[in-house]
């Protein structure tokens, strides 16, 4: 027999989390199938064919995955390296406090900061000009609004790095990892060997779910790619909103189709993750 608080908790979860989500996905699905909406003409798979058959959609998905993989890979990888090399730096002292501050910066502010730093008229470009590295600002590479999403990746990297530093520092000092490391030492491991053979794989395993969730968050991000991305290569949220807000009302069902496909991918990834954890 479950406690009443369990049922209350389950009810609140369904009411405030699952129900609105299902309602949203359900509405998007109906819209994408032509069953609702202002220009609805009854059931059709045309919008799905249009989206799934469009090279642009798959390019967008691939670009979103690329941005998420590179930014999270770099941030999580560097955080792991830093924590293993200098774990005390982030546990005690001023850095252990300041490391929390970037987490309070909204993503749109970070996007502006990166724009001011990396754009052709930005700080780095001007510095490069002053140092004689470029003859004019136009020669500065397209780090912002460019094909490779360097601005987007940089912004996400700087937002994710402190998060992963905090996560790995706390995990590094967890009692169990401490015991595993000590076990490795008495079996003959140097600190470097214990870090690479024990701490790194254990931390990566334990943080896997968090890394995947952050990956999905970056993949679906909007403000940063909106400001720092290019027009030709967009991330999935930007493409969706663009289609939703276009003058052509006929594009709206496609926007809903994209959001349903994206939701299916995310749900499949999370379900796979939960199965793996079991």
């Amino acid at each position, binding site marked *: 027999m479950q406690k009443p608080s369990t049922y209350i908790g389950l009810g609140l979860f369904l009411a405030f989390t699952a129900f609105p989500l299902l309602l949203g996905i359900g509405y998007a699905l109906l819209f994408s199938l032509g069953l609702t909406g202002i220009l609805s003409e009854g059931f059709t798979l045309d919008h799905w064919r249009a989206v799934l058959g469009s090279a642009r959609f798959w390019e967008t998905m691939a670009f979103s995955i690329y941005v998420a993989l590179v930014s999270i890979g770099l941030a999580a990888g560097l955080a792991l390296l830093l924590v293993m090399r200098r774990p005390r730096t982030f546990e005690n002292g001023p850095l252990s406090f300041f490391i929390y501050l970037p987490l309070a910066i909204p993503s749109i502010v970070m996007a502006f900061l990166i724009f001011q730093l990396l754009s052709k008229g930005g700080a780095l470009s001007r510095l490069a000009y002053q140092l004689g590295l470029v003859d004019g600002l136009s020669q500065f590479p397209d780090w912002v609004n460019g094909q490779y999403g360097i601005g987007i990746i940089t912004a996400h990297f700087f937002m994710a790095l402190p998060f992963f530093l905090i996560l790995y520092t706390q995990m590094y000092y967890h009692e169990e990892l401490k015991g595993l490391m000590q076990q490795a030492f*008495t079996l003959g491991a140097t600190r470097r060997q214990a870090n690479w053979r024990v701490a790194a794989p254990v931390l990566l395993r334990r943080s896997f779910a968090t890394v995947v969730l952050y990956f999905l968050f970056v993949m679906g991000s909007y403000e940063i790619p909106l400001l720092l991305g290019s027009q030709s290569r967009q991330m999935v949220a930007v493409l969706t909103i663009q289609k939703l807000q276009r003058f052509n009302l006929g594009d709206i069902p496609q926007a809903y189709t994209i959001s349903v496909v994206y939701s299916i991918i995310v749900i499949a990834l999370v379900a796979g993750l939960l199965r793996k954890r079991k």
Partner: protein
Amino acid sequence: MFLEAKNINKCFGAEQVLDDLSLQLAEHEMLSILGRSGSGKTTLLKILAGLESPDEGEIVLEGQDMRPLPPNRRNIVYLYQEPLLFPHLNVFENVAFGLRLRKTQEGVVRKRVGEMLANLELPEQARKMPHQLSGGQRQRVAFGRALIINPKVLLLDEPFGALDAETRASMQQLLKRMAKAFAITALFVTHGLKEALIMGDRIGLMEQGKLKVYETKKAFINDTGTGVQAEADFWRGIYLES
């Protein structure tokens, strides 16, 4: 003497955990150390392993001062109450861990790990991950992982504390057998009177950071302070009542 700890003192803040503690351990001997929780047993083992530093005192292994050596260069393996198997490695790789650190040839690793798993009655479990094993199996893998590198001294910190009575009894027999086969020199820490008597060639009693080592089991049994007499009286009383 093979291992000697001389006049070890250790404080944590104002609390004196080890108080002028000395012990001697002969080669291939297993010394049981009996003591209540908080008596300083774990701190003593950690100091011997190099995981803690003593405030004062000396540790000598085969005539060599151990204090300047880090844990990885002492060849003293410390086993916790929990088996602490590496969760990302299967049974084979857990046992092979120390050999891999020493860059042992692959063929030799396979042979020695295979033999060790056979000794531990675990050959079918070689490819399993730690979470797929029972508590007793996990503890056996931990023994195998320690023994395969031929440590000079094995420090066992209540290794059977988390096991049920039946598994505990079979593990005690297994360790006795392995200790003989591998000629182990070990310190076995426990808070179980019976376990201390079963496992140790000699027995020491630890109280408030001080260690008293009895030269024979008889001397240990005859000392009223060890609790053996009280335990025997209890069971005798139960027997007579029934």
